[in-house]
Every structure is written in structure tokens, then in C-alpha cells.
């Protein structure tokens, strides 16, 4: 009785490891190829970016959507990205490939600031 249990206990982690290997890096690549790269949203409303600080993994496409009744822009402090003017319901997307902290603001209402932290 004890021996059987012992074998089962030993087999479980081995089986788990095998499953893990199959769905390892190879599996993630397959998912990306199917177009499921990470994405995140920032809502622009009431003269503010929400969330004000967004933390995402490298490779994420961030989409800003203007829900305010006044136009806004999304302009990087360091000229890394710059949207055209976004009227209500218009969107702007940017894919962050390099880790770092990206401050941005609305060039029409410069008191509106936000940050994307890419890890």
C-alpha cells in the first residue's frame, strides 16, 4: 500500500513537469502568432487619463480611447509617440517594445499627464 502511494506521489511532479514543458515557450509563441499579443486600455475622460499609471509587459499594445466631450491628444514627453487629435470616441494605439517609463501628456491641456511603465 505504502509503496503504491509513494510511486504516485513521485509520478505527479514528473507528470506536471512534462505538461509544463509542452506548454512552455513554444506554446506562447504559437499564441502570439495567432494574434493574441498583450493589450491594455487607457480611458481618457474628465480631463484625465485612467489609469494615470499603467504597468504593462514589453510587447503590449496600449490603446487610449477618448470618452470626454472635448478633444485630447496623447503625446510622449520624450517624443517617442504622438497621436493626432482625438475627438470623442476616437482611439490611439502604440505598441511598447522596450522596457522603461514613458511619461506622456495631452498637448492641448498640458496639466493632463500619465505614465506607462513597461517591464
Amino acid at each position, binding site marked *: 500500500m505504502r509503496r503504491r502511494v509513494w510511486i504516485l506521489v513521485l509520478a505527479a511532479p514528473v507528470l506536471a513537469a512534462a505538461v509544463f514543458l509542452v506548454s512552455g515557450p513554444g506554446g506562447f509563441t504559437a499564441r502570439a502568432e495567432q494574434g493574441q499579443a498583450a493589450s491594455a486600455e487607457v480611458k481618457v475622460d*474628465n*480631463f*484625465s487619463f485612467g489609469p494615470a499609471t499603467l504597468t504593462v509587459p514589453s510587447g503590449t499594445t496600449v490603446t487610449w480611447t477618448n470618452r*470626454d*466631450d*472635448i*478633444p485630447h*491628444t496623447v503625446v510622449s*514627453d520624450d517624443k517617442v509617440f504622438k497621436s*493626432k*487629435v482625438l*475627438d*470623442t470616441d476616437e482611439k490611439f494605439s502604440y505598441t511598447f517594445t522596450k522596457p522603461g517609463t514613458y*511619461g*506622456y*501628456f495631452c*498637448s*492641448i*491641456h*498640458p*496639466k493632463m*499627464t500619465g505614465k506607462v511603465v513597461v517591464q
Partner: protein
Amino acid sequence: MTKKLKDEILHDHNHDGVDRRGFLKCMAWAGTGALCVMQGGVLKSYSLSRLSDLGGGAAAGGELSFVQISDSHMGFNKPANPDVAGTLKAAVDKINGLSAAPEFMLHTGDISHLSKPEEFDTVDQILKGAKPKDVFYVPGEHDVLNDDGKQFLERYGKGSKGGGWYSFDKKGTHFIGLVNVMNLKAGGLGTLGHEQLEWIEDDVKHLKSSTPIVVFAHIPLWSVYPEWGWGTEDSAQALAYLKKFGSVTVLNGHIHQIMQKVEGNVTFHTAASTAFPQPQPGKADSPGPMKVPADQLRGILGITDVNYVRGQHALAVVDSSLA
């Protein structure tokens, strides 16, 4: 308004010739069409129906009369005002109905809402119906989107310097149009910039201190409410260059409501919008378009009539609503 109103200085605590209580009382009447004039240190108010007594001499005596409009936001079509062309037309009607015909107009910016050519075209078309044919513009932040102001300069910037600043004279009064909506920095306020400041210093250097000065720019040149970006970072330097003058009037827009401040020889005034109102500082989460009941909208939008009568230190500034 047929009643004759009269206020005189009773208390001059700051020794600057302004009785604050009298001034504030006067300003409370301003919305209903009163005229507050500083005459030799005494603040006097007159009902709008008597404006012709003061301004009537404007045409005859070489005095000066002009109108300021602001923030037409052509292209805006949200609930706060679905018909900004209609309210701009109403403003033109108001201007055409003034008893003392203004000689020209100042537009203190946000002419368009999205810097689109058709928006500028529509404003040009509507303003052609106004009696004063000359219009002088300075840009708002909504006029310089997408192209760093290239289109604005092509349309309205003839003879201007740098980002579109310029000056001109009318009947002995010196007008200075400034641009404080370009190169805005993250977290910042309006900005004039080094090049423009140097130009201002040079522009007024040789003027006699008795020359009345009118400065017009989009974002207020005093700190109305920095939390909402309602101020200009480097305006103090510009005002320092104007310190020697006995009469300086600063006309701004941007905040879509009437506000006035007097500091020594400088009178600051912001105009109502012809498009939509915005909340008072801090009275809302954000400075966006403020919805009011439809029958109240035209009572909150408006124009500003400005008259200079020789011998008086301050220009007479009168705000009228569209309703």
C-alpha cells in the same frame, strides 16, 4: 436699464484708487449691462442705456471703440451647445446692435474646435456679417492642433512674428497680440517663451508711458486657476515690461467665463465664450463644457465691448450676454 446707477469710492485701503467693495458691487451689475469707469480715481458706474453718453464721443472725438469675442469653437457639436454657428451669429447680431459702432474686433482664440479648414471658413463667413470689418486674431490651443499652427499663421498671421505675435496702433492706443498656446510642456501652463518676451520688451521700449496699452492673448495672463491650466508661466516677465505705462488692459479668453482683476494700472479681463460655458474654478471635476438649461445658454454666452475715452486711465469694458 433706465435707472441711473452711481457708485463712488468710500474706502481706498490699498491706496490704488480702487474701492474693492464698490468695484465688486459694480461688477455684479456688469452681467446685466452696466459700465464701470475709473475716472480720476473714482469708480463710477452707468447703466448700459447711458453708454452712448460716454461712447457717443467715440466716433466724433477720436476716441476708440472695439469689441472682443472669444472661444467660438466652430465644429463643437456636443450637448453643451449643438449650434455654435447659431450662437456666433447671435454674437454678430449683438455687435451690430451696439449704439456706438465698434471700429474693429479682437478674437482671443479657439476660433475653431479641431483646427479644421472648414471650421475656420465658417467663422470667417459668419464674421463677414459684422459691421466692423477688421478682425485681429490670436490663436487658442484648439487652433494650432496637428500642424504647430501653420494653418493659423497662413490665415491670420500676416505681418506677425515668430509664433504669430504682433502689435498695431489705433488712435494712439497700442495693441499687442500674444501667443501663449504653443510649445506647451507636460504639466505646464500657457507659455510665452523667450523669443516673444524679448520682442515685447523691444516693442514697447520707445513708447511714452502715457500710451494706453491693450494686450490680448488666449490663455489668461494672470493666475486664475493653475490646477486647470488657467494661467501663463512667464507672464510676470511680460507685465514687467509694461510697468511704466499708466493704463494697461489685458484681454483674454480660454476660460469661457467673465472674470476681472485690477492690479495697480493693469486691468485683466476674460471674455465669455460664444460657444459654451465652463465651470467656475474648482466648482467641477474638470474645466470641460458645462451644460445649462437650453433657455439659459444665451444668457451665459457673450461679447465684450471696450471703449477708450480720452482723459480716463482705464478702458471701459462692458460685457453683454447674447440673450
